[in-house]
Each structure stands twice: as C-alpha cells, then as structure tokens.
C-alpha cells in the first residue's frame, strides 16, 4: 500500500520562478489546521467540563445508582469507542499510506511537513494546557470531598478515560505520521519521541496499579502519596521533549538555511 511520493512541491500558488521570497510565502500561510482542531478539542473539553460541573455532584457520586448508569456510563463508553477507533483507524491509515522513498521528497516538501508536524504538536499543546488547568486538580478536589466508590467516578471518566487518552490518541498517529512522512525520521525511530509517546501511553496501564492499591492498602486521599508516583515517573517522560525539540531544531535549521539560501535552486 505504501505509495511513492508524487506530490507537487509548489508552496506558493504563484509561479515557481519568482525566487526565494515566493517559495517562502507558503510557510506563512494562516494555519487553518491548528485553528480548526485547536478550537474543536477545546470545545469538546469545555463541553465535558460543563457536564462535570453540572452532573458531577448531582448524579455522579454513586456508581450503583440508576442515575449514574444513565448519565455517566454512556459518556464513558462513548469516550472509549471514540478514542479507540480514532487512534486505531488513523494509525492504520497513516501506516498503510506510508512513504518509503525518502529521496523522492523535496526539501520544500520536507520543510512543509515539519511545519505540519509543529501544527500537530500545537494542537496537542493546547490540549495539554487544558488538561493541566482543568482536569488534573478536578480529580484532587473531587476525591478530597467525596467518598471513593469505584474506578468509574466522574472525574476519572473525564481525566483518565478521556483527557489523557486523547493526548495519547493524538500522539500515536503523530508518531506514525512523523516516522512515515519526514525523511529524517523514516526507516528509523526517534528515541526521544518514542519516550514521550510511551510515557504518556503508559499512564493508562498505570491506572491499574493505582486502583489496585486503592482497593486495599491505601484508602485515604493524600495526593502526594507514593501510590501516585507512578504517574509522576511517567510524567517525567516529558523530559524527553528537550532532546526531541533539538532533534527538530537541528533538522529544521538546516532545511531552512538551505531552502532560503540565495543560491538555492529548487530540488526535483
């Protein structure tokens, strides 16, 4: 299914022989991808937040009540289906349509794809900020005023089964896209990128340890308790953002330097 790259590399709608300036213009286009998807996920986040605020304490404190089953469990199932299918379908699609011939990708197209990669990261960043300012401490506030019943409690349904998995759902396809579309990443694996993806991904299996511990040896809502440090350790995977950023910087620097040089002629 892998296809050879035959895309046009024109970054500017104008003629190609306008010189470096016109080629440059393509990199300054308003980034609709970021605006659209950024707004979309923020809207989803906002909707969930409003839902939590209104339905959390009203019908969300008792898993065994009919109201909980009516108003919260469908949300959970919906989230799992949505995120699961999004991740799998997009990942499989990106893999099946992967490009294998790095040499056929021109420098302009490569640079364009770097900008696209940054756009994807920008959307994820907006989501990361939303999780940090909204979701993380909502769970803290919740557990410190309500009695723990089951793992499926409203704040968990939002943060553990949507907010953080949504980040993973974006990271995994982004990882595959990067490694199948950008020459510097093709046919090999970027270790810092892998570390970031794995760290965030592993947060989900770590719920297992967390809830297992809460079932018998750890009953109280001390947030800084050792049982929660698994999440901390996985959060440290973000340390790898720095090497990942510099991987990106050194590659993009060279591409920009080359494609904007006075004597640069467009590659085939």
């Amino acid at each position: 299914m892998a296809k050879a790259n035959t895309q046009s590399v024109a970054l500017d709608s104008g003629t190609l022989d306008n010189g470096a300036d016109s080629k440059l213009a393509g990199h300054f286009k308003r980034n609709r991808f970021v605006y659209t998807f950024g707004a979309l996920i923020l809207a989803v986040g906002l909707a969930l937040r409003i839902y939590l605020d209104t339905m959390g304490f009203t019908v969300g404190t008792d898993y065994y009540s009919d109201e909980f089953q009516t108003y919260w469990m469908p949300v959970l199932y919906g989230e799992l289906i949505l995120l699961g299918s999004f991740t799998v379908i997009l990942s499989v699609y990106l893999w099946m349509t992967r490009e294998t011939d790095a040499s056929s990708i021109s420098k302009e197209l490569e640079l364009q794809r770097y900008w696209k990669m940054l756009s994807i990261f920008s959307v994820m960043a907006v989501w990361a900020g939303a999780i940090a300012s909204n979701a993380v401490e909502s769970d803290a506030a919740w557990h410190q005023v309500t009695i723990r019943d089951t793992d499926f409690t409203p704040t968990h349904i939002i943060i553990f089964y949507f907010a953080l998995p949504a980040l993973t759902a974006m990271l995994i396809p982004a990882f595959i896209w990067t490694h199948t579309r950008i020459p510097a990443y093709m046919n090999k694996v970027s270790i810092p990128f892998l570390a970031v993806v794995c760290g965030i991904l592993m947060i989900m299996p770590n719920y297992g340890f967390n809830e297992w511990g809460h079932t018998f040896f750890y009953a109280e809502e001390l947030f800084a308790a050792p049982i929660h440090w698994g999440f901390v350790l996985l959060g440290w995977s973000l340390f790898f953002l720095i090497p990942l950023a510099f991987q990106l910087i050194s590659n993009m620097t060279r591409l920009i330097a080359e494609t904007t040089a006075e004597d640069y002629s467009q590659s085939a």
Partner: protein
Amino acid sequence: MNETQASEITASENKGRLLDMKSLDNPRAMKLYRRFDGIIILVLFMFLVLGIQIHFTLTAGDWDYWIDWRDRRWWPLVAPFSLLIFIGPFAYGLWARVRLPIAGTVITLLLCVVSWVSRYLNFYEFTHFPMSFVFPSTYIGLGILLDCTLLITRSLLVSAITGGALFGALVWPLNWSFMAASKVPVELNGMLLSVADLMGYQYIRTTTPEYLRIIEESTLRTFGGSVTPLTAVFSGLCGIVVYGLFLWIGARVNQLEIFSKRIV
C-alpha cells in the same frame, strides 16, 4: 552536540553548519526562525504546564491546596524538592543547547498561573471552597534566583550549589508575605487554633481528615523552637543535591537525541 561528536563531523555536515551560520544573516531565514520560536514556545510551555502540574500535584499538591497544610517543617522541604526535580532536566537542556537561563522561572511561573486557574475552577467553582483557603503558593522568586545564579556564574555546577540552596531555603520568607495572616491565633471551644486550622475545620473536607495532614508535630528536640531556619538550611541542602542530581539526569536525557534502527 558535544565535543567528541563535533570532532567527528563529516565534511558535508561542516558545510551544512557553515550554511546554518550564513542563514543568520539571511532575513528570510530569520523570519522563519522567529516563526519557529513562536510555535516552539507555545508547544514547550503548554507541555511544561502539563508536566509540572502532574508532577507537582502528586508530589507536593496537598501542601499547596490547603493553607492548613503549609507548616514550618514539611512544606518548605517538600515543595522545593519536588520543583527542582522537574526544573533540573529542562534547565540543563536549555542552558547546554541554547544558553537560555529560563527554566526555573518559566516552570515556577507556569505552575503559579495554572494553579490559580485550576484552584478557581476546581476548588472554588466545582467544590465550593473559598479562595482564601485554597490559594496557591508562589515559587516564582525562587525560579528567578535559580536562573540568575546560572546566568551570573555561567556554570551549572555553581548555580546548583548557590541557586539550589537559595531555592530550597527561601520558600518560607517568599510566601510569608501573604501567608502570615493565616497563622493568626483564634480560639474555639477553649482550644488554640490558627486561622488556617479553623478554616480546615469549618470548611468540610469529607475525605481529608485532620490527621491526614503531614505537618510539624511538636518534639522535645526543636532546638529552641527554631524550626523554620533549620528547615530552611536542610531544604537548601536538599535543593543542592536534588537539583544537581536532576541536572545530571538532564544531561543523560539530552544525550538521547538519537535514532534507533528499530523499536527494540
């Protein structure tokens, strides 16, 4: 890129680097570089917000949520210890690669901003606590001191010793300006309480009982009651050690700017 790698760079890489240098005089390239700056600042800062929020809330969060947790013995020790763990690797990366001494300030500043937003949304709006009981602490001053020692001494090691110590030691005086009010004495049923204790009692936390607080309990051996300065000195020591350790970890992590042929 470190020196050993630099000595092994190929001729074409050398040519490329010359081209990179030349691009600094090219306004078109500089324009793109600035565009990149804007994006990377957004991406990096937002992920840092997530990282520090998860890290801090699960290692020192309880002390930061409630003013009746901010005691003299544990909070000034735990909070800087936790923060320096997260700051270390980023401080190393940003200094070693681009000579930007900003990690400490950026992380403490972002933590403060996100804490205010989060406390408002989650503790004030969602669970009805008054802001006077759940306002966050500030560590921004400590971040600036940490970064400035690096900037002035231009040495990660020296900044770890000086800045790390200051970061650990000054938590209490930095926050005292707006925290002292909560330590004013009140009486309830013949018992002495601080205003913070009274708020902890009155504003009900169903699953956060009084005994859960990890705070100073009296002992015979408080050296004349000088708990705060003693904690500050010990916290300074911890600051040096933990910051140094995580700078080192940052150095190791930064070496992993590599590719592997396959996922093992």
